[in-house]
């Protein structure tokens, strides 16, 4: 839908990386798909952006993108944060592919912090940007030891972390990067998505790829794979729930962001997935605020102002 802000230049190799590097990354991806949830080391390259800007995701996307792809780039659920715009422009410049903000219209989606609300299909690929790929790192800093734990399926430590949550807060307080067991074998960090999104990973139709640039790891979940959030029998996993619908599209059971409306402290809760929200409004749904108060005055991007996600309980 959106027209690219920048246009394709042929100063770069297609998708920036040279063909040999892309092949190397694809081999890591294939290995990752063959062993769901297993972290495959790869020789991550320097990218023309700093770590923390999604260099891992960018390299994975660059390795799998083709001329016929339609790319969607999301950051915190939105297509128009500074990050999302910069990364989208990077691929427009280096590939000339079409881009879209519509989840349904995209064949390739790179994301940071969210999974779209719209269910994904078999002909789509979802690429996650991952800051810290090792779920055991929290309690075991030694890489040799965490590798051994994965190899021998010694995952007691993950539950130690959840135990500590319950002991301290009365419930499992982990709300982001909530650990999952993939294909009944590997414990995996789903990247810092809200645990609200965890159930979407379970048996997802789309291929899910994860890239960690600084830590040089790639992992994957093939379509239709079991992804189970870790928990205790007497403290079962529960995704966040919101006690109100989206203020402007009325959607329920979606992940909401709190948006500050003015300096008097008025606020509203709206879909974090801005494309989903827009689609619904186009279809004629409205929330209790009717129209989007942010549409009227120019307010900067809503998502850059989105503050807390703790509207949930």
């Amino acid at each position, binding site marked *: 839908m959106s027209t690219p802000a920048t246009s394709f230049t042929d100063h770069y190799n297609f998708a920036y990386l040279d063909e040999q590097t892309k092949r190397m990354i694809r081999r890591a991806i294939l290995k990752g798909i063959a062993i769901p949830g297993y972290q495959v080391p790869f020789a991550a390259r320097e990218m023309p952006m700093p770590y923390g800007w999604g260099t891992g995701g960018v390299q994975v996307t660059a390795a799998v993108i083709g001329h016929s792809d339609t790319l969607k780039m999301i950051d915190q659920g939105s297509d128009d944060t500074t990050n999302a715009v910069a990364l989208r422009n990077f691929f427009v410049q280096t590939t000339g592919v079409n881009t879209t903000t519509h989840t349904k219209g995209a064949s390739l989606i790179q994301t940071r912090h969210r999974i779209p609300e719209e269910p994904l299909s078999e002909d789509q690929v979802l690429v996650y940007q991952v800051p810290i790929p090792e779920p055991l790192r929290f309690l075991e800093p030694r890489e040799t030891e965490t590798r051994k734990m994965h190899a021998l399926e010694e995952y007691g*430590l993950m539950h130690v972390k959840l135990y*500590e949550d319950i002991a301290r807060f009365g419930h499992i307080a982990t709300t982001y990067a909530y650990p999952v067991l993939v294909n009944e074998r590997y414990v995996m960090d789903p990247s810092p998505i809200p645990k609200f999104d965890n159930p979407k990973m379970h048996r997802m139709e789309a291929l899910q790829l994860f890239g960690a640039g600084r830590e040089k790891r790639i992992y994957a979940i093939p379509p239709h794979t079991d992804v189970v959030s870790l928990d205790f029998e*007497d403290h079962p996993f529960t995704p966040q729930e919101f006690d109100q619908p989206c203020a402007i599209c009325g959607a329920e059971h979606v992940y909401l962001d709190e948006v500050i409306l003015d300096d008097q402290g008025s606020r509203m809760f709206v879909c974090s997935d801005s494309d989903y929200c827009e689609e619904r409004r186009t279809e004629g749904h409205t929330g209790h605020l009717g129209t989007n108060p942010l549409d009227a005055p120019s307010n900067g991007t809503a998502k850059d102002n989105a503050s807390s996600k703790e509207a949930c309980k």
Partner: protein
Amino acid sequence: MTFQDNTPEQPLLLRASKTTKFYGDRIGCQDVSFEVYPGEVLAIVGESGSGKSTLLNCLSTRLAPTTGAVEYRGRDGILRDLYQMSEAQRRVLMRTDWGYVHQHPSDGLRMTVSAGANVGERLMAVGERHYGNIRSNASDWLERVEIATDRIDDDPRAFSGGMRQRLQIARNLVTAPRLVFMDEPTGGLDVSVQARLLDLLRSLVSDLGLAVIIVTHDLAVARLLSHRTLVMRHGRVIEHGLTDQVLDDPQESYTQLLVSSILQP
């Protein structure tokens, strides 16, 4: 149907056969052979550098011997060479059927997680998934090692040396191991704290029927806890027998020297 009225001899639990460890040219321990039976406490004594820790590490699969064998009888009754087992099998053994108490509690504890989680970790490692059960188990064990149960959510950094050592012991015993290795467990503690820990160890060991292999350079510890004692010097076992015999009537002049040195006022 009749039963034999003499109880059958207990099968041995662990056997070392000519266990030898070289560090390059230097001897760690050499040709050490002995057996340990269920419920038995064996002390390994000797001066600093005599090879006690080396031997203990070889027995507990923490250090592969250069030559010789170490066998252990699993709960299935089968005696297996530990170093023929896969690493995965050895690690399962280490966190279920065995315990290992380090001299420095910080080597055996997770210092940044709560006392409850320290005790519960092994339960979670063997698949316990009920928070309430884990917590009540941890609480019972804190009580057994004389740590007030209201400290369950404190982490060990807030504990005294003696409490830390007792916590380390609880953490090891929660899976009801059959054999516990200890390397100078009272080493870093004040005398009065040592005495209390020894009393606790003694009653736990007899209540639980634990087999223990304990390394100490303190003959008083050997005397109080162990049934049998093995005296090491320069990596070799120079004397081996019932603790009371070894300490009351040492045969080797080196052991005589050791004994007399602690009896000096």
